[in-house]
């Protein structure tokens, strides 16, 4: 019987580890809380190694736990990325939480449950499992967003996030229930078989009804237009460490759930859902880029840029080709890295009782801290998609997939929008490089976050010079997962 659970060994370990960390923290005072932090990182690292040792590089898709849990190479790559990004997020959070007087263990414990939810989302092969994973992630996130409970903005963000997120979950659940009603099954495999045997997939009204709800629910979670309203407010109101976490790893999990649910289970109906998603994606690219132009709050700016990036990523998925999926996966992994890097930079530049929030706070950064200004520059150029940074290849891969699928007009639209997008990234660079600094303050940060931020920035160039490495990882993973 033990062997049956082997398939979920990393998740089970993580669950146990987070209980241990929770208990451990009871016996620790504020001064020794660093042990909680270290224990958390150690558990994440162990989980990562478990994922790597047991599941990575397997050529076949293994279904276990009564057909509810799937392990394939895509899951392996995505889980490892989620864990790595989360570890980066936690390392940055350590500095932030101390600076902002929020040095409590809740962040780490809730963060671990969120990660557990993400891992389940990546591997779930059953509507209920997927839903449970998503809810585990969302509920932990609601609590994390509300962590600064005496702050009006944070509370507002949390309430907004919770209410809209709950509505989205409701949408998703409703769509799933209709799918169940149609097919009589919750397993993705069975759903796929059922719908491919149906001749009237494209005209089945109930199925379209279900698809609409599922697409809307997923769009909420991804934060694409017109279901994006919560995103800027939540990004802005949330403590930056949580924004970092929220804006990076969960995006990868959201990608996974879209792949599992739409591409794997509802593949027979792809003509229908890809049209819906395409419209949302194009709208997001347009609106995200345009609205980001007028933001003065960095976190809001990155929120709108996230909307645009999610649109770009979705454009890869809606092409419903192997190239498209791999391009989207490449895009989402890079995006998570860039977004984490950008927020990590904001955390790095903050100090006790002071946060970098507004564009003006970056004034003359290149004179104050030339090295970190350069790193931020690389991350921003990468987000704008200017070669030779890595972000260019992400956009290029998507555009290649789009042109290959004969949507040249969409490609033209996307590149025009990315020119508009380039402008607001340039604005940040302009403020960092061309303006005079107001104040001269040293960076108060430990070596770990300095190194992490530098590595993140340099990765933008390294992955730009050798983009083939990550591209072929995505390509091979999805080939092995037969997508």
């Amino acid at each position, binding site marked *: 019987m033990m062997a049956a659970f082997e398939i979920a060994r990393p998740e089970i370990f993580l669950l146990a580890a987070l209980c241990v960390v929770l208990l451990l923290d009871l016996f620790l005072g504020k001064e020794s809380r660093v042990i909680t932090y270290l224990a958390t990182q150690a558990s994440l690292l162990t989980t990562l190694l478990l994922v790597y040792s047991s599941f990575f590089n397997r050529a076949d898709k293994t279904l276990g736990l009564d057909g509810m849990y799937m392990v394939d190479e895509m899951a392996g790559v995505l889980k490892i990325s989620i864990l790595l990004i989360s570890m980066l997020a936690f390392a940055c959070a350590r500095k932030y939480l101390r600076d902002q007087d929020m040095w409590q263990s809740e962040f780490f414990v809730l963060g671990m449950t969120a990660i557990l939810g993400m891992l389940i989302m990546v591997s779930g092969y059953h509507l209920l499992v997927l839903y449970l994973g998503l809810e585990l992630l969302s509920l932990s996130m609601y609590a994390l967003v509300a962590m600064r409970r005496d702050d009006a903005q944070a509370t507002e963000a949390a309430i907004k996030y919770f209410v809209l997120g709950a509505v989205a979950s409701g949408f998703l659940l409703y769509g799933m229930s209709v799918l169940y009603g149609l097919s009589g099954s919750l397993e993705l495999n069975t759903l796929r078989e059922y719908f491919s045997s149906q001749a009237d997939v494209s005209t089945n009204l109930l199925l379209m009804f279900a698809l609409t709800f599922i697409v809307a629910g997923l769009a909420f979670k991804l934060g694409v237009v017109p279901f994006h309203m919560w995103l800027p407010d939540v990004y802005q109101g949330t403590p930056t460490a949580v924004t970092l976490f929220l804006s990076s790893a969960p995006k990868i999990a959201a990608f996974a759930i879209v792949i599992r649910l739409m591409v794997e289970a509802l593949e027979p109906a792809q003509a229908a859902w890809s049209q819906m998603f395409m419209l949302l994606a194009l709208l997001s690219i347009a609106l995200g880029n345009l609205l980001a132009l007028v933001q003065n709050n960095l976190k809001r700016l990155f929120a709108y840029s996230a909307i645009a990036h999610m649109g770009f990523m979705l454009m890869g998925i809606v092409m419903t080709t*192997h*190239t498209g999926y*791999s*391009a989207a996966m*490449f895009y989402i992994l890079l995006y998570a890295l860039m977004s984490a890097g950008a927020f990590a930079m904001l955390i790095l530049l903050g100090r006790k009782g002071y946060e970098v929030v507004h564009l003006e706070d970056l004034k003359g950064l*290149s004179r104050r801290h*030339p090295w970190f200004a*350069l790193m931020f520059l690389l991350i921003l*150029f990468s987000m704008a998609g*200017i*070669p*030779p940074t890595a972000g*260019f*290849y992400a956009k*290029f*891969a998507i*555009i*290649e*997939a789009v*042109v*290959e699928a004969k949507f*040249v007009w969409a*490609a*033209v639209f996307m*590149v*025009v929008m*990315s*020119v508009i997008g*380039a*402008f607001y990234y*340039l604005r940040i*660079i*302009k403020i960092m*490089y*061309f303006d005079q600094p107001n104040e001269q303050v040293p960076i108060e940060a430990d070596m770990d976050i300095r190194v992490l931020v530098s590595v993140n920035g340099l990765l933008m160039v390294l992955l730009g010079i050798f*983009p*083939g490495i990550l*591209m*072929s990882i*995505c*390509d*091979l993973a999805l080939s092995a997962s037969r997508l």
Partner: protein
Amino acid sequence: MMEWPILSFLLWLPIMGGFGVLIVGDRYGARQAALLVATLSFLISLPLYFVYDSAAGTMQFTETFRWIDALGVHVNYDLGVDGVSIALILLNTFMTLLVLVAAWDSVKERIAQYMAAFLIMEGLVNGVFMARDALLFYVFFEGMLIPLFLILGVWGGAQRIHATIKYFIYTFAGSVFLLVSLVYLYTQTEQGSFFLPDLYALTNLSESAQLLIFLSFLVAFGVKVPLWPLHTWLPEAYAQAPTGGSVMLAAISVKVGGYAFYRLALPIVPEAAHDWALLVVILSLVAIVYMSLIALVQTNLKKLIAYSSVAHMGFVTLGLFLVFKLQGLAFADAAVSGSVLAVQGAMVQMISHGFVAGGLFLAVGMLAERLQSTEISAYSGITSRMPVFAAFFMLFAMANVGLPGTSGFVGEFFVILASAKAHFWVASIAATILILGAAYTLWAVKRVLFGEVNSSELNQLQDINRREFVILGVLGLAILVLGWWPEPLIRLMEGSIREWMMMVSPSDLMPAMKGNS
């Protein structure tokens, strides 16, 4: 063929060197380190000229290996140079070296970053000139924007921010369409390839696709060159850039546009280029005449040189697109020699303009360093206080006018000669530059160099020092050598240009081409 990858050296040495200079930092010998890297790059680029077999005119020194092979995308790291690329690479390494020497004392602030930006840009521009893979080309073509953006924005003049952002957005907006076109072309090739010869060989493009691709090329490269209505970023950028930035923009960056027409636009979609050649010829003529007229009324030296640059670059596009107007000639021989002449003229003009505009900007930079102004009205009677400087300035001005014996003459003369074969009016309009150019240049020279010394600041002007003398002297020498003896340059490029003609010519002219070469 050389055994070791000389092109990769030329590409990576300046880039790595640039990062090295950044690490060295302002305090310890950033200048010397940068100078070392630039000198090495220049020295490494010299063998290209001597070893290259210019009679064959083919791509040589080629290097190739698989770079990206995933997601159904196959991109090669494909380098190679022909005669034209070598000439431009030499120009690039040479001008970078001069610019770094020119910045020795004049740039006081953040010297390491300044030097590093120029070195990194040198490497990326070399990459543009040697890429044989369209995506690789695009990466360098876009990537060179980043250092230029910083050079303009950090060390530029008072209104630099507007000029810098405008420049970036203009070029970026132009080139994203290029990306879509290249990706489209990629999907049209049989195996999926960005290799330029594979793109040249494409024959299955529909007429509308050709047209759209051509237009995207026209916009992308037209912004860089700049072609007449796309030029509005240029005067501001040139005027606001620091001296080195203006020099690199005028001498190198705009050449990238001309080179891209030569390397990508014309050979990939020759039919569309043929159909639309008249438009480009007209735009070039407008640039020549209209920009010259605007240059007449400028009160700022840098802006005057900027407008004059647009006018002179008009000859490059004119020469390149004349090829299609000459192909229709009844006598095939005349057509071939005329076309070769036109393209040679265009290419010689690119090199010559690099020296002339570079020299003028460097000279103006030296003036500005002394009086903190680039307004013409700030100067008067320089000759009596700075005689050596005045002599050089006069030489550059004469080359700008296109006086026989200077390099400016050769290219323009070739293009005018070729255009006379195509149409009388094209030649006569193009030839007006000789009059208009003389008018605005000489008038500016008169106001700056001659007249009375009418202020105490002017009275205290020091003539150029030894370092400045070397910079201007080397450039002046290059201009004179190229003017009196253009033979080596022409021979370097001739074989490649004849090869190139085969790719852009309709098939019925091909036998005549082969017979001639």
